[in-house]
């Protein structure tokens, strides 16, 4: 059988074992997040920790499941930095005082 299916890619990457390992990591981090949810933390701290963990999970999904790690690096440069830039801009300018909420302090949960 010729390489009809994968011909255009030219590289068959990632073994089943690797994907299962990534999946186990994702499930573990999910477990940590649920555990954190039951800790009595200040909402801002809690949200920060949860988002950091979720960004880690997102990076695993994008790199391995969505294959970006194995694409040409120019594609990563084309996609990731502009997206991050836009998200930062949304965070700063979406509301007139989006960032002020952090200084005002949300008070008790």
């Amino acid at each position, binding site marked *: *059988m010729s390489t009809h299916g994968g011909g255009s890619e030219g590289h068959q990457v990632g073994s089943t074992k690797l994907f299962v390992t990534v999946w186990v990591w994702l499930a573990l981090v999910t477990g940590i997040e649920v555990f954190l949810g039951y800790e009595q933390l200040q909402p801002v701290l809690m949200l920060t920790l949860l988002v950091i963990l979720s960004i880690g999970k997102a990076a695993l999904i994008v790199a391995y499941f*969505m294959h970006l790690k194995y694409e040409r690096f120019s594609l990563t440069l084309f996609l990731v930095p502009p997206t991050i830039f836009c998200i930062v801009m949304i965070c700063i300018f979406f509301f007139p005082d989006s960032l002020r909420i952090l200084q005002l302090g949300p008070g008790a949960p």
Partner: protein
Amino acid sequence: MHQAKEAALGSLWSGGTAPFATHSKKLGMWLFIVSDTLTFSAVLLAYSYLRLANPDWPRPFHFYPAIVKSTGMTLVLLASSLTMVLGVAAMHRNDRKSTVRWLLATALGGVIFVGLHMTEWVELFHEGYTPWSTPEGMPLFGATFFGTTGLHMLHVSIGVLYLLFIAVGIGRGKFTADDVEVSGLYWHFVDLVWMFVFPMIYLMSIQS
């Protein structure tokens, strides 16, 4: 010498070159994913802003059923991403039969996700949480919660239809490995969004 090289490769300015060494469908799906990422970023930022700004934001999620169910939904969606990856790998081996099986397993994961999510919504309805009212008298919670999770559920439902469409085509001998890979990109993205929706909405409002 230079001209000969140019004739062999084709001019950079006359098209036909692929700077990202990938095909246009994949690039198109990536661009869609970037734009959809920004949609969900805005929605989740708006939700988190309201969540932090209101000390008495509703916290309706009991350990059971809400947290148990949503954690289960997370694992189901992650598992469906795994079957999707295996489907893409099977198609790269040109094994259409197992590709169809993996794709159907992935779609089944999506259906289970939507089903669990629906039952969880219905339980919230019974407790008085609707898109326009809550028992605490904070309709903003209802609007943003059902809006955000509903938008995500819509993405999952469209993903299930997309996967079924591709699976049927693969079974009939249509489509290539590229098409399976592009549908996989969409499915993983839906999974990725839930990795933010779940902690930022559910885990931030566990009933204490």
